[in-house]
C-alpha cells in the first residue's frame, strides 16, 4: 500500500498559558491516502481552522506528529527548517474566497508559485497554462482577475493550489460563496484533480449541499476528530 499522503497522530494545540490556556486541539488523528478527498466538518469553535493552520504549517502545534507522504514534518517540533518552502512546494491552499492577486493576470496568478520555487518564468507560465486548461479555464489565461466570474476565480485558485503538484491541498470552505450548482462543480473538480494528481484534499466545510459528496468525513468536536463514512454521492 502507498504511503498515506497525510498522517496525523495525537496532534494538540494549546493557545495561551495557565488559567487562560485553551486547548483547541486535544489529540487529533487522521490518515488520508493520495487521491482522496475528505470532508472536515464541525461546529464553530470546534478547532477546524486551528487544524487547518497546523496542517498548513502556519502555526506550530503544541505536540503530536504530522507526516506528509511518509515524511515527518512535525514530531513534537518542526522537522523542517523552511516552512515557507514547505508551504510553497508541498501544500496547496484553496480559500473561502479565491484571494487571487488582483494585479496579476490569470496565468501569472497561477505561475507565481512555480516562479517562487525558482522555475524560469516561461516554464512556470507553461505549467500554469496546462493547469488552467485542466480546470477548463484555459481560455481565460490573459484575463484580469476582475474579468472572471466567481466560479472561474475559484477554478483559478484551485489551479494555483495544484500547480506545484503538492501531496496535499487544504480547502477552507471553498464553496461557501457559491450556489448549489457551482458548489457541486467545485467539488467535482477537486475530486477529478485529486485523482489526476494523486493529491489528498481536505475540505473544511459547513455546506450541507456538498457534505453528501464525500466518501469519508472527519467530524471535529471539542478539539477531537471522529471519522465517519460519507455517502459519497456523485457531485
Amino acid at each position, binding site marked *: 500500500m502507498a504511503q498515506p499522503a497525510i498522517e496525523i497522530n495525537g496532534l494538540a494545540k494549546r493557545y495561551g498559558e495557565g488559567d487562560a490556556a485553551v486547548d483547541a486541539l486535544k489529540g487529533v488523528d487522521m490518515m488520508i491516502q493520495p487521491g482522496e478527498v475528505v470532508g472536515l466538518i464541525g461546529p464553530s469553535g470546534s478547532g*477546524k*481552522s*486551528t487544524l*487547518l*493552520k497546523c496542517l*498548513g504549517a*502556519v*502555526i506550530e502545534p503544541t505536540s503530536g506528529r504530522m507526516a506528509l507522504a511518509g515524511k515527518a514534518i512535525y514530531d513534537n517540533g518542526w522537522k523542517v527548517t523552511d516552512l*515557507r*518552502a514547505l*508551504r*510553497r*512546494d508541498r501544500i496547496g*491552499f484553496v*480559500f*473561502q474566497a479565491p*484571494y487571487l*492577486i*488582483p*494585479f*496579476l493576470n490569470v496565468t*501569472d496568478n497561477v*505561475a*507565481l*508559485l512555480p*516562479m*517562487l*520555487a525558482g522555475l524560469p*518564468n516561461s516554464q512556470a507560465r507553461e505549467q500554469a497554462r496546462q493547469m488552467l486548461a485542466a480546470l477548463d479555464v484555459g481560455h481565460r489565461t490573459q484575463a*484580469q482577475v476582475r474579468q472572471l466570474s466567481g466560479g472561474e476565480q475559484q477554478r483559478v485558485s484551485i489551479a*494555483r493550489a495544484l500547480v506545484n503538484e503538492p501531496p496535499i491541498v487544504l480547502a*477552507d*470552505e471553498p464553496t461557501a460563496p457559491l450556489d448549489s450548482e457551482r458548489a457541486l462543480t467545485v467539488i467535482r473538480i477537486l475530486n477529478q484533480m485529486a485523482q489526476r494528481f494523486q493529491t489528498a484534499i481536505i475540505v473544511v466545510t459547513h455546506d450541507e449541499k456538498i457534505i453528501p459528496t464525500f466518501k469519508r468525513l472527519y467530524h471535529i468536536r471539542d478539539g477531537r476528530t471522529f471519522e465517519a463514512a460519507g455517502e459519497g454521492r456523485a457531485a
Partner: protein
Amino acid sequence: MINLAARDILHGWGKFVFTGVGLGLLIGVTLSMAGIYRGLVDDGKALLAIGGADLWVVQRDTLGPYAEPSSVRDDAYRSLLGIPGVAAAGNVTYLTMQIEHARGEVRVMLVGFQPGHPGEPGYLVAGRPITRSHYEAIADMRSGLSLNERIRIRRHEYIVVGLTRRMVSSGGDPMLFVPLKDAQEVQFLKDNDALVNERARSAANPAFNRPGVPGLLEAVQASQTNSHQVNVVLLRLAPDADETRVAEQIRRWKHLEAYTRADMDEILVAKLIATSARQIFMFLVILSVVSATIVAFIIYTMTLNKVREIAVLKLIGARNRTIALMILQQALGLGVIGFIVGRTAAALWAPIFPKYVLLLPGDAVRGALLVLLICALASVVAIRAALRVDPAAAIGG
C-alpha cells in the same frame, strides 16, 4: 520572477500617478526653495561681476557698500589711482528706491557710475551706452522698462537708452544705471524746501553768521548743499598687481577700507544673505520632513490596502525579501514620478517668481538622490507592517 511592484503600479496606475503628481508638486516646491537660495547667491555674485572691479574701496570700519552704508569723498579716486598696481578707478553710488513708470512702479537699485570707468554695466542687450552727462539711463530688463521709455526720478526725467540683463542687487532688485552726477544728486542732494530751511537755520546760528567773518555763512551753506560723496570706489588692478598688498596699502595710507573679491564674496554670501539662506534652509528641512512623512503615509496606506494579498503571498511561500522589495520598488517608483513632476514643475514656474530662481543640474541630481533616499526610508514603516502580516490571516477562523 514577476516584478510584483510594477504589476501593482500598472494595475492601479491612475491612482499611483496622481499620488506621484501630488508628491511631485511638493518636491517642486522643495526644489524651488533650493533654486531661490541659489538665485540669492548668484545675484550676489552677479553684483560683484558687474563692475569689473578687483578691489572695493569703502568707508573705514564698514562692510559697505552692499552690506552696510558707506560714504567716501568722490575725489578719493585720484589719490587711489596713484597707488602702484591700480590701473583704473571709478566712483559708484548705489541707492535702492521705488520709481514710477508708465505701467506702474518698480523697485530698482539706482547705480551712479562714470562711463569708461570700473562700475559701468558690462554689456548691453539693446540700445546704446550712456553718452550724455545727464538724464540718460540703462535699465536691467527685469525692471520692465523698455527702450526710449521716459521715467521720473526725484526732480528729473530720464530716458532709457540701453537695456542690460542679470544686473540685480543682492536683494534681486533690477539695476538702473545713470550718470554719477545725477545719482549723487538723487542720493545726497536735499529738496529745495529742505535747503531753504537749512540755510535759514545756519543764518540764525551766531557761530556761522559772525559779523566779523565775511563769507563764512556762504561757505557753510555751500558745504551743506554739496553732493560730492560716493558709496564706493571700484579699482581695477594691473595684471601683475597683488590685490592683497594694494588693499593693505589703501588701509594703511588712505584711511579707507579695501575689500578684495574674495572678501566681498564672503560679505555677500556669509553676512548679507546668510539670514535669508538659513531661512530657506529651514524651509528646505521642513519640506523634506513633510515630503518624507507624506511618502511614508502613502506607502503605508498602499500596503495596508494589500494586507490580504500579502497574507496570501506569505502563505503560498513568498519570502519576506520578495514582499519587502515590492514595497521598496513602489516607494522608489513614487519617488521617481514625484521627482520628474517636481523638477518639471519647478522649471515651469521658476520664471514666474519675482526673484531669480536658479535650478542647478547638480542640485537636481542631489535632489533626486535625496528623494530616493527619503522614499526608501519612508518605505521602512510599510515594510515592517507587511512583514508583521500573519499568513494565517488568509485562512478563515
